[in-house]
């Protein structure tokens, strides 16, 4: 029977996301040419929160996009019955833009690599940065996050789940530990 | 020297003499010498144990395709005659749609000779109605009968011309032979691959409506009435045809009919998955037709069972459904199918089976056999009505393997097939 530990509750998560929003604006030296792109699925909701904070703090509507990386996965040939592909929305010219990719958990780095491949098919931004709510280490590729909500240390067989109100009914970051070796 | 054969301990079943009783049968010099009760074997007599079996007049299949001359790659008269014997048939009639067509006395003679060489079941040639089966000029019925033909037919094809059918029925009377028609109205059936119905509509296959057969059935019956000739309707497949034959017989018209084991046991559903082993002409129809045909066999509206054994090369059937040729083999499964699907469920009894597979064919086609009367030719089938076996096409004596019954568990098997007093087939070799 797995046990679950809450790393961030709803309030802590909210504070962390606000701080991340500020860091992003700082990284870009402002809000000009900024585009926030969330990775399906929960990265999209987190991107929404971050953009809302930026709007509240800077009174600027930063464009929000979504990226579904299913078709760019490097393990697509072996993964079995196809996962359903979500929506990708990137209706702008990326030239001269500063794109910040937002994802919930950074682990092996393969998702981000797929997102970079996909972005390359859309255009050539001036700069791409990565913002993640949780960095759990365990990289298999040389990928690094520019903005990190929380860095944690977990065993490989543990799961880190980010919950968002829109999809899961509540906010939070939870570690599910497996007691048995299932 | 007298060659004697004693069939011991079986049940003698001869509906032509209302005989159905345990008893022995003694054969000498190729004829039935004595039958009934217990018979002493005596000297130089081979004894065959027939316990648990029926001993009946030999089965006769009046409709099969032996492919020789022309398609010896697919069947020869020898392999066909052996397959017939394995199926319990002591005689078969071979249809003339060979290459070249059997439409003259030399061709008829060739078949007779090949059959004698084969030394298995008897093979009686059927001559063509028209030269080359082209449906134009009559073939020489007299010459062909003189050489040994027992009937005429353009089977494979219908006799499309009513005029030709009429003259054939008139002309054939001089030789007292039946004219066999493959009833298929060509313009209705054209391009069709299976029965026209809901299955063909779903599979997207062109259909052959039942009327294609029935239109020719009533035509032939009316022409038989007009001419007084004997028309024999090949491989009936529809309920409508049965009704028309009944109509004709009620009026004393000389119409007789046959049905195949597959039309008695399969429906158009067998075509699912585009299985070419379910493709034949006339096509498999619906359950209502199957029921009507079984009933007609029981009450005699349909006179006999004939296999329409039609071997095809594996490659030929291994094709898109619309391209594959029509036809399946049937000599080695006929008895078991009739036993399993008609006798066991009680639609007909064994006496009727023997009547429809031996007595009637012999009578209608004026062939020897069809009876166990003393002095008659010793064409005898010994069959085990309860013998269970599974159909394995690779073990058939026929060269053909195109059967939809592969893997089926059936009951009923010929144990000995005796032709003119010679055992031409023993189960188990």
């Amino acid at each position, binding site marked *: 029977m797995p046990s679950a530990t809450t790393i961030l509750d709803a309030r802590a998560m909210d504070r962390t996301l606000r701080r991340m929003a500020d860091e992003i604006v700082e990284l870009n030296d402002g809000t000009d040419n900024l585009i926030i792109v969330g990775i399906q699925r929960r990265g999209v909701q987190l991107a929404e929160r971050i953009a809302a904070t930026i709007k509240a703090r800077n009174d600027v509507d930063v464009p929000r996009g979504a990226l*579904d990386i*299913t*078709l*760019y996965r490097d*393990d*697509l*040939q*072996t*993964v*079995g*019955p*196809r*996962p*359903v*592909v*979500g*929506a*990708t*929305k990137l209706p702008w010219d990326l030239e001269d833009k500063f794109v910040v990719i937002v*994802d919930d*958990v*950074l*682990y*092996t*780095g*393969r*998702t981000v690599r797929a997102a970079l*491949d*996909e972005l390359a*098919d*859309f*255009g050539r931004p001036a700069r791409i940065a990565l913002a993640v709510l949780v960095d*759990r280490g365990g990289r298999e590729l040389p990928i690094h996050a520019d903005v990190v909500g929380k860095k944690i240390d977990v065993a490989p067989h543990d*799961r880190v*789940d980010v919950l968002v109100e829109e999809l899961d009914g509540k906010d939070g970051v939870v570690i599910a530990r497996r007691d048995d070796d299932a | 020297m007298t060659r004697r054969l004693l069939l011991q301990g079986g049940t003698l079943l001869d509906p032509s003499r209302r005989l159905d009783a345990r008893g022995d049968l003694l054969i000498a010099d190729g004829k039935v010498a004595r039958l009934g009760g217990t018979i002493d074997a005596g000297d130089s007599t081979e004894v065959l144990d027939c316990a648990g079996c029926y001993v009946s007049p030999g089965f006769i299949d009046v409709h099969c395709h032996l492919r020789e001359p022309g398609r010896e790659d697919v069947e020869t008269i020898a392999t066909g005659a052996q397959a017939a014997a394995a199926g319990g048939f002591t005689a078969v009639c071979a249809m003339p749609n060979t290459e070249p067509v059997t439409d003259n006395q030399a061709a008829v003679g060739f078949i007779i000779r090949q059959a004698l060489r084969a030394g298995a079941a008897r093979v009686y040639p059927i001559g063509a109605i028209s030269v080359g089966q082209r449906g134009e000029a009559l073939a020489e019925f007299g010459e062909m009968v003189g050489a040994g033909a027992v009937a005429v037919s353009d089977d494979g094809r219908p006799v499309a011309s009513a005029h030709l059918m009429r003259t054939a029925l008139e002309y054939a009377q001089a030789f007292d032979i039946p004219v066999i028609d493959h009833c298929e109205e060509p313009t209705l059936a054209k391009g069709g691959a299976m029965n*026209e*119905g*809901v299955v*063909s*509509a*779903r*599979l*997207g*296959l*062109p*259909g052959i*409506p039942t009327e294609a057969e029935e239109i020719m059935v009533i035509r032939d019956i009316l022409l038989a009435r007009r001419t007084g000739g004997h028309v024999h309707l090949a491989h009936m497949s529809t309920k409508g045809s049965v009704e028309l034959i009944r109509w004709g017989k009620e009026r004393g018209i000389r119409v007789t009919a046959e049905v195949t084991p597959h039309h008695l046991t399969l429906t158009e559903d067998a075509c699912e*998955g*585009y299985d070419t082993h379910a493709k034949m002409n006339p096509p498999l129809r619906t359950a209502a037709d199957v029921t009507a045909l079984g009933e007609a066999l029981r009450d005699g509206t349909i006179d006999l069972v004939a296999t329409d054994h039609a071997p095809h090369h594996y*490659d030929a059937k*291994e*094709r*898109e*459904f*619309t*391209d594959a040729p029509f036809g399946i083999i049937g000599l080695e499964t006929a008895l078991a199918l009739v036993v399993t699907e008609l006798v066991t469920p009680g639609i007909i009894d064994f006496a009727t089976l023997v009547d429809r597979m031996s007595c009637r064919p012999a009578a209608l086609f004026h062939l020897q056999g069809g009876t166990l009367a003393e002095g008659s030719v010793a064409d005898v089938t010994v069959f085990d009505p309860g013998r269970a076996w599974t159909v394995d096409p690779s073990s058939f004596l026929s060269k053909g393997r195109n059967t939809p019954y592969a893997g089926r568990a059936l009951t009923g098997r010929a144990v000995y097939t005796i032709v003119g007093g010679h055992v031409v087939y023993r189960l188990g070799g």
Partner: protein
Amino acid sequence: MTSALGKDLLGLEPLTSEQIQLILDTAEPFKEISERAIKKVPALRGQTIVNLFFEASTRTRISFEFAEKRLSADTVNVASSGSSVQKGETLVDTARNLEAMRIDMVVIRHGASGAARFLADRIVSNVINAGDGTHEHPTQGLLDLLTLRDHFGTLAGRRVCIVGDVLHSRVARSNIWGLKKMGAEVAVCGPRSLLPWAIGEFGVTVFSRVEEAIEWAEALNILRLQLERMTAGYIPSLREYNRVFGITRERLARAPRDVLILHPGPMNRGVEIDSDVADGPHSVILNQVTNGVAIRMAVLYLLAGGRPELAEAAKGGSER
């Protein structure tokens, strides 16, 4: 483990409504890819797909080719005319040769009903039926469903009438199965000689007059009438067909509602459909073509899912 659709897509009749739903839903994101500047995703990179077309067809073949290339697959076109008998090489041999070359997927169009099934039964590769005789044309059926769904939002309860030569139409059959499984109400309309004799068993309404069909329907799927039908004695002339069954602006004007117009193409303008209808405001014929590529991408993508020898169990949660 096999894909959610099994090994092959041979028709819509064998599919469940869930499977059809999955294909339609999967096609949505694929529509977006065709709007991008770079119309390519690496999803089927390294897969080899053969388009085996025994019947000439430019539009379907091109549509499949675009779908394959936009998924980064390698495609080969083999065009061949005639049946096995005429060609010399049997369909069985063709199948075996393809398998020996380790082709991943075959898209086959053939003049014989059942040809796709014949091939699928004999090779390990995925087989997609691009039209077999008069049996089925599943991707066409699916793109018609998608087009209808785009317009109406749902398919359940929608009244769709298929007009024309249903007897000889694989598009009609696929549409009937697909629409019924998705809960639509289906009707057919055409000369009785061009409807299957057993059409009554299909659970569809049969209209003998096209005016009745137009009055009833929310959408018409208009089938192409082929010249050969006239010479084969099914109908007297194309001119009469147009006068009695043609979809014209006048007939549509008398309809109680706007009727959506679909046509699988290619059109015989002035026969089954008049130009001002085909090019009119209610025609979604071009949408059908666009959706065709997305549907085919979705089908290829779904079928390629799960090779038993390569698949590993999908891990719970996603690998980050």
